[in-house]
């Protein structure tokens, strides 16, 4: 009987520091034994638990797209586990459990425009989604892809070299914005994500909106999407609650009767409307 609590062994291939404060790092993990790769099939939007023996476990959104060779996680140093993880260099081993949760609704995207709204360092699963959607076999049956990604300052933007290329990519209308420009050579819009979204004003009919960011950003993005004409079942949110097991047993991540780890983390806004605002 397989035990969902046993992590599979992974090895850190590469660690890239994402911001000047050095408290955001991206870890590229490789499977120690290739056989584990088969039963780790995931879709962008899902998450996994990283495990360090004796330190603990924590859930993180998978930042790499399924077609990429390594499994990417971007982690901010906030507590005991993330500090221990940040002290690890390439070559170190750690455990990974997953993939858990559902994914973004790729099955309803063909033939429609896609609007991606993201803020802060939760751009991880949406980065995976964009990379996945830009694959030729996915891109061709999609309409316009608009992505709005905001951060506090240019230094805090994740995957800088990648998003520079994406800015030039004709298949994707990427708008980067920062709360305050501090000079840098990188021209971006200045302003908060919800305002920039209103400015960009993507068309709502036949479109799907994917939103992921801190609770405060989600709170102010909804009215703007509503203004632009997005109906609740067109908007999908990736939520983040405290999680301890990932398989819907420990009870921590509940929003009303639903568990974010099992029934989410991606919910349509229509679903959330008849759930208590406990996220």
């Amino acid at each position, binding site marked *: 009987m397989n035990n969902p609590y046993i992590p599979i062994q992974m090895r850190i291939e590469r660690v890239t520091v994402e911001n000047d404060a050095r408290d955001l790092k991206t870890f590229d993990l490789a499977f120690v034994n290739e056989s584990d790769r088969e039963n780790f099939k995931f879709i962008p939007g899902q998450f996994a638990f990283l495990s360090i023996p*004796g*330190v603990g*476990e924590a859930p993180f959104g998978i930042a790499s797209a399924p077609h990429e060779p390594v499994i990417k996680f971007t982690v901010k140093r906030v507590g005991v586990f993330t500090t221990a993880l940040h002290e690890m260099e390439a070559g170190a081993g750690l455990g990974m459990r997953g993939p858990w949760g559902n994914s973004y609704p790729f099955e309803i995207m063909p033939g429609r425009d896609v609007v991606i709204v993201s803020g802060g360092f939760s751009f991880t699963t949406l980065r995976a989604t964009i990379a996945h959607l830009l694959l030729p076999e996915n891109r061709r049956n999609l309409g316009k892809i608009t992505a709005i990604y905001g951060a506090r300052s240019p230094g805090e933007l994740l995957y800088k070299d990648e998003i520079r290329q994406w800015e030039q990519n004709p298949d994707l209308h990427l708008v980067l914005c920062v709360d305050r420009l501090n000079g840098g050579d990188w021209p971006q819009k200045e302003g908060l994500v919800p305002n920039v979204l209103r400015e960009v004003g993507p068309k709502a009919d036949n479109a799907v909106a994917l939103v992921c960011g801190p609770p405060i950003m989600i709170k102010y993005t909804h009215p703007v999407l509503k203004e632009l004409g997005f109906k609740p079942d067109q908007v999908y949110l990736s939520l983040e609650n405290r999680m301890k097991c990932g398989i*819907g047993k420990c009870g921590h991540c509940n929003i009303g009767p639903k568990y974010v780890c*099992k029934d989410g983390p991606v919910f349509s806004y229509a679903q959330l409307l008849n759930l208590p*605002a*406990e996220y």
Partner: protein
Amino acid sequence: MKNRIISRDELAQLIDRLVERVDVYAPVREKNGANWGKVGSANEIYLEAVNTHEPAKGFLFPRCEMILKFDQSGNAVEPGLPQEQVVFGIRPCDARALMVLERFFTSEGKTDPYVQARLEKMTIIGVACNRTAPACFCLALGNSPHSSEGMDVLLTDLGDVFLAEPRSEKGEKLIAGLAEAEVKHLERRTELKERVESEITGRIDTTRLKENLPKMFDDPVWERLSLPCINCGACTFLCPTCHCFDVTDETVRGNSARYRVWDSCQFALYSRHASGHNPRFNPAFRYRNRVMDKFYYTTEQMGLISCVGCGRCITVCPAGIDIRQTVATLLSFIDSTER
């Protein structure tokens, strides 16, 4: 499956035979009442108390359990399999609670291996209630002091003998050689059943709860209902169907292991994010979460109300809160708003 009868001596011998083979847990005498204990012989068993102080939850889902041990190179090693154990003298509400926990931990393809392993190694022999306590309200939720859900064998004390009703092959094998029950025994049991059921008066209208509780979520009544609640974990830890747990790692002198320990949605940091954001920072939200989970959320998740009416959360609450009154206030509130 044949109902049989078993005398007190035969029952004592049955237990003493079991004790040689497996660990037998049963209610034993404690300061003011009874509580679970491992018994060495039948005469240590004490069935006079209406129910044990703690529920039988700990046998299936222990308060602290090692789930993984890490060897020197950091590989995770599963702990050994649990031994065979017999839980004797469990009351119908607690047995139903074990069934609720089983359904929760093994639902929808994501089975918890530790609870599953214990389930397979557990024999449950229940004893029907012939007396009730002021806090008992199993009947109010449609259960009964004589129900046998979650049991392998249900015993009913008829006075001179016990009526033994098997509910699984394991149970049937256990009482195979005994004399068969006659009609008079079954009549005596029904008579006892009606008498004890008459002692529980209140009824909770569970269907109206299911329809109306979702609408009650943002109602200000919760603020007032939760004022006396001090958000301790007593009710959740003593509740036979509360299943929340925390996972924590501990390293002592070099060897580290991962543990699963009981947690409570009443604790302030239970739902706090790493960023510090806490969706249920307000004590009233946490009290609401427990009542909603017992009477509404689990009906959505598993199609049954997870409260079994054992009354422990009522007797143990330091603030004297009665969950029946909370539910009654909610229902009366629904009436007033509906008019």
